[in-house]
């Protein structure tokens, strides 16, 4: 009979992230027998119901991967910073460039080392970097879970005396088990990597994320032409075929893009808030609106004359990059919405739509009638009523005289289809 492992010498000495990761795994375990075996060191892996995957304990990971470290050391020859992970987020290796830059940056910015767990490192990130670290962890989960092939996230190390920023690209690897993901880190301050650089000017008071992503001098050139306007619920900015005289950069308003098909109700294909703009088609060479742009949430926007906008677009490379990235994300959103409208049931779509609206409005309460929502989802009003009543009965939302309040966000996320997660991930990409 083979003995219990007892104090078999571990390949790695436990460190802070490892201990935290193990403590987190222990919290997933319920049941006396399971906990007893866990504490006796007889457990290799713990199932995570939320993500649907198995997480290996640090001891099991190190035993498994001890033999695979040698050949991976060839990555040391690469000039770029590389980090390899297995399916549970265990760092199999980081190359020489990663280690060197990590030391240079005072080990800030998720600077993991082989044997640590990347998710645990995200959990250990300083409070000031919490949003960034959560976005990275969520992104990595989607890459490891096969939802996305690759994802790029911008991370600001605000805990350092001198703020530094890097872009982290996470890519799924298909073959070569046990390597499941490859991360590359590009610091914006490093020489030779300037081409990735987006200088965050973010002048105080600029709510719109596209404008905030522009360098100070580019923004200054636009500033004189940006006119603050108030737009109200139900207002139509363009009808399909209208010549677009202005573009709008929403501050805190929300605009739905609707497609009209003869003989049917309008159907929402996109939703734009402070992360985007209305009229991006002008940048792509069109002059007429392909959709109806309908204000869904009252608020303010910065408006700019279309001709001035096109001129500035051709002049500024940064503006081009920022807007083309937005156009790409909008296209992603439109295609995801199209598929969602075709395949998912009204209840899940309503939940998805309420979540997106709440995110963009940055508020848990908003005013919307059933008829309006029916237009957005392309269903009959009765369908919306049934779905809304169902959500209300479960205590997830409260609906009173057109005012919707999200009471249980987690419950709403659970009720929503996977499209919400995908759409949210698009929003977390840079800028």
């Amino acid at each position, binding site marked *: *009979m*083979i*003995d*219990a*492992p007892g104090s*078999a010498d571990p390949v790695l000495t436990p460190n802070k992230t490892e201990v935290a990761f193990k403590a987190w795994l222990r919290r*997933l*375990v*319920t*049941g006396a*027998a*399971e906990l*007893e*075996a*866990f504490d*006796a*060191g*007889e*457990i*290799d*892996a*713990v*199932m995570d*119901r939320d993500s*649907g*995957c*198995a997480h*290996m304990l640090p*001891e*099991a990971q190190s*035993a*498994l991967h001890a033999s695979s470290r040698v050949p991976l050391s060839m990555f040391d020859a690469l000039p770029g910073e590389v980090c390899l992970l297995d*399916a549970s987020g265990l760092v199999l290796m980081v190359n020489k460039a990663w280690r060197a830059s990590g030391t240079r940056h005072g080990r800030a910015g998720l600077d993991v080392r082989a044997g640590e767990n990347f998710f645990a490192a995200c959990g250990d990130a300083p409070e000031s970097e919490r949003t960034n670290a959560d976005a990275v962890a969520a992104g990595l989960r989607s890459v490891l879970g096969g939802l996305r092939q690759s994802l790029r996230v911008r991370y600001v190390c605000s805990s350092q005396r001198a703020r530094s920023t890097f872009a982290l690209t996470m890519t799924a690897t298909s073959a070569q088990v046990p390597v499941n993901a490859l991360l590359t880190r590009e610091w914006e301050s490093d020489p030779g990597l300037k081409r990735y650089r987006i200088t965050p000017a973010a002048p105080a008071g600029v709510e719109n994320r596209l404008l905030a992503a522009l360098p100070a001098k580019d923004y200054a050139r636009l500033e004189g032409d940006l006119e603050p306007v108030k737009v109200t619920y139900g207002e139509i900015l363009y009808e399909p075929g209208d010549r677009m005289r202005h573009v709008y950069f929403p501050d805190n308003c929300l605009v739905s893009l609707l497609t009209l098909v003869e003989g049917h109700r309008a159907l929402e294909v996109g939703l734009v808030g402070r992360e985007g703009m209305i009229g991006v088609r002008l940048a792509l060479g069109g002059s007429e609106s392909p959709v109806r742009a309908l204000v869904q949430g009252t608020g303010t926007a910065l408006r700019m004359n279309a001709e001035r906008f096109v001129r500035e677009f051709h002049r500024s490379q940064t503006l081009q990059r920022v807007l083309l990235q937005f156009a790409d994300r909008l296209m992603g959103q439109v295609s995801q919405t199209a598929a969602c409208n075709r395949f998912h049931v009204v209840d899940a779509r309503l939940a998805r739509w309420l979540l997106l609206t709440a995110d963009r409005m940055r508020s848990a309460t908003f005013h919307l009638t059933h008829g309006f929502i029916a237009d957005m989802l392309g269903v009959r009003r009765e369908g919306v009523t049934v779905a809304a009543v169902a959500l209300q009965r479960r205590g997830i939302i409260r609906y009173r005289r057109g005012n919707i309040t999200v009471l249980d966000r987690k419950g709403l996320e659970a009720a929503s289809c996977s499209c919400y997660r995908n759409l949210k991930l698009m929003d977390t990409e840079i800028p």
Partner: protein
Amino acid sequence: MARSERAVASKRMKKGVAAESGTTVVVMRLYIAGRAPNSVKAIANLDAICRQHFKAGYKLEIVDVCEYPRRALDDGILVTPSLAKTSPSPGANVIGNLSDTSSVLAALGVRSASAT
């Protein structure tokens, strides 16, 4: 790796009753995590127990949760290694690397007198 293990470990038995002894065949499922140390031990320990105590026959399926996490979750598995006896009823579970032979045998319904 895990696939070949499963093939080796799955003893093909006649369903239901073992021919010569007339006793009911024990059907078990062992959930493991790849080649992790406790999982390897659990397979070896269970193999030794089966050779000694289930000469009449047994049926064992090995599920690697790294490959089939969804299946483990659906079966209510929380940690691995984890052994589930599915037949004959009542079902039973043993958690850990199965080094405590007597508790494994008790869970599998083998009288303690026959345990060595």
